């Protein structure tokens, strides 16, 4: 169908309507980006702005903030809550919420401590048991939501208390279990760092994949008589990404380097991103989040989608709990308490996942948690009391939600829902 014997240029299938503006040149792309932001499609912009502001403010107050080793510590901390935020993205995309992820992570860390240290299970078995507890809690929330119509807000609020109680119960009177320092789990959470060459090689991958996939898609689209992204733009994007990542890795390698735990978190984010954008399951998630009834009528099993999201969220929360146990080398009553819950939710929202459902991405958890942890790390460096830290983090969360609400209002008025 793309054969064009006469040789005259024929509009491609998707370019035959003259009402659509096509952003081909770099200038037009920049303009398109500006218009998208104005219509409320903010994407990653709040994160970029946030990170710049945070770096400037904290590094002027305390130069240590930007030191390589401090950033390495920051990445270690990001991984634990970040994994929890990945799960939060899943439920937020559906327009639901899980308020019990903090307690779930605390329970998981307690399970690992009790089974592994106190009962003498192999560490892998203990971790598996912790993850299974997450699966069970997720299934319970899904059953409450699907069968009894209980709002996830209330169900998980009840879960927050119940799981916290369970955590305190299994930890027993001592309230704290130290994990052996020499164990591989604790080493993974505290010291294991990628070799320099490996981290430098790995960050080449995103750019290479982007170009490789881009060329393949381009060829397919041109063969199918569809317009394709210009090569220039593709290579420019990949080059900018690769250079930025290489510089970041180089800087981190001036300190200790890239933690394996952070690599695990990034790997999970990539997998979740693929699942959300390139699979039928992901498409169904966004459909259910956007219009539940429309999704049901087009034959999607809505209940199964809700179940998958709640289970995924609780399981990732449990994994986050295991990682935080390995990070702190202990399972204690404090694990998962305090601001873990809100940090995970705030990370997803700041990264651009809407609280109203139907919009979001796995990378929002990745970028959002870096913002949140940077704030918390910077405030710790300033030696501020926890009272002030809570107030500031609360303010940041409020701002993130306000930005989300305003952007949503703007999207509705610009017909981009």
């Amino acid at each position, binding site marked *: 169908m793309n054969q064009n014997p006469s040789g005259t240029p024929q509009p491609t299938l998707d370019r035959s309507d003259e009402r659509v503006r096509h952003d081909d040149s770099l200038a037009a792309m920049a303009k398109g980006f500006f218009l998208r932001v104005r219509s409320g499609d903010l994407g990653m912009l709040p994160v970029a702005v946030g990170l710049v502001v945070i770096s400037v403010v904290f590094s002027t107050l305390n130069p240590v903030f930007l030191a390589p080793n401090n950033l390495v510590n920051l990445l270690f901390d990001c991984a634990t809550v970040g994994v929890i935020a990945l799960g939060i993205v899943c439920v937020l995309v559906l327009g639901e919420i899980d308020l019990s992820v903090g307690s779930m992570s605390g329970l998981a860390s307690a399970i690992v401590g009790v089974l592994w240290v106190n009962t003498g299970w192999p560490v892998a078995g203990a971790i598996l048991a912790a993850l299974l507890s997450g699966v069970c809690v997720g299934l319970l929330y899904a059953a409450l939501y699907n069968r009894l119509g209980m709002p996830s807000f209330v169900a998980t609020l009840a879960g927050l208390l119940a799981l916290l109680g369970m955590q305190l119960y299994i930890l027993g009177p001592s309230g704290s279990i130290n994990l052996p320092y020499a164990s591989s789990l604790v080493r993974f959470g505290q010291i294991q760092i990628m070799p320099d060459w490996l981290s430098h090689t790995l960050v080449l991958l995103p750019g290479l994949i982007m170009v490789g996939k881009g060329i393949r898609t381009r060829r397919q689209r041109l063969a199918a008589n569809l317009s394709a992204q210009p090569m220039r733009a593709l290579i420019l994007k990949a080059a900018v990404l690769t250079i930025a990542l290489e510089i970041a890795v180089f800087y981190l390698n001036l300190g200790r380097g890239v933690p394996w735990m952070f690599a695990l978190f990034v790997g999970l984010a990539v997998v979740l991103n693929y699942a959300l954008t390139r699979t*039928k399951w992901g498409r169904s998630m966004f459909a259910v989040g956007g219009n539940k009834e429309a999704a049901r009528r087009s034959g*999607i099993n809505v209940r199964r989608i809700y179940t998958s999201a709640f289970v995924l969220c609780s399981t990732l929360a449990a994994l986050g709990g295991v990682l935080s146990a390995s990070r702190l080398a202990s399972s204690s009553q404090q694990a998962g308490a305090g601001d873990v819950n809100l940090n995970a939710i705030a990370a997803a929202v700041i990264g651009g996942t809407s609280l109203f459902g139907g919009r979001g991405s796995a990378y929002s958890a990745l970028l959002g948690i870096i913002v949140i942890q940077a704030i918390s790390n910077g405030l710790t460096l300033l030696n501020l009391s926890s009272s002030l830290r809570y107030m500031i983090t609360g303010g940041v969360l409020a701002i993130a939600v306000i930005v989300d609400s305003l952007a949503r209002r703007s999207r509705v008025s610009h017909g981009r829902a």
Partner: protein
Amino acid sequence: MTATLQSASAEREPVLRLRGISKNFGAVSALTDIELDVNPGEVVALVGDNGAGKSTLVKVLAGVHQPSAGSIEFCGKPVSLDNPAKALELGIATVFQDLALCENLDVVANLFLGHELTPWALDEVAMEVRAWTLLRELAARIPSVREPVASLSGGQRQTVAIARSLLLDPKVIMLDEPTAALGVAQTAEVLNLIERVRERGLGVIIISHNMEDVRAVADRIVVLRLGRNNGVFLPDSSSQELVSAITGATDNSVSRRLERKAGHAHDNNGGAP
């Protein structure tokens, strides 16, 4: 053409046969003892006043509502339509009056929703090509299939909804008020489309308040009134008959006006044999 199609379809068994369908919402019976046959290659129009139960009947057939009583046969076999997925699987596609589209997704995603190609690695290129081809066949004026549906007009959304129902090669397609939100050209296009669908041997159920549209395409007109069957008409039956069947009254302003018109026509043609 209608006559040949009807005689052809008369030999085959109806693709859809409803017997004694009732549906209660609490104390209200929305449908009572509905009988309906749809043959392959036949357009059946469901007409009736507001609240006559047309949309409820469509929702029963789409698997959205479950009937309180009665039986549904599809291609000669009794079936129960427990959920929308089941109805779609059997080959009953529906275009709902309240357009069931996800506004946050683009046109391609909406067209293929629930039936994406290659579920583990969505083939966006193939889906986009199929979307454009389908929209071309419908002569649809959708500017871009990669914009969220939220940016489309009502008529464009209707086109997307109809295109989606045809994607799965259904045996029966139901259209609930397909032309209500459309302009003149799009209405003609949708009516053309319905005829093309009929020629492909599909059974079509169309709900409309617009008698002109109904008579233009329907092979049979089934009138519902207060949730009950109230007569079956051929498209050449008079408007007066239809209106009185729909409203249940032989004497009202609409029928009087029609009578006057008919009387005028009769007077004018009085001299002719």
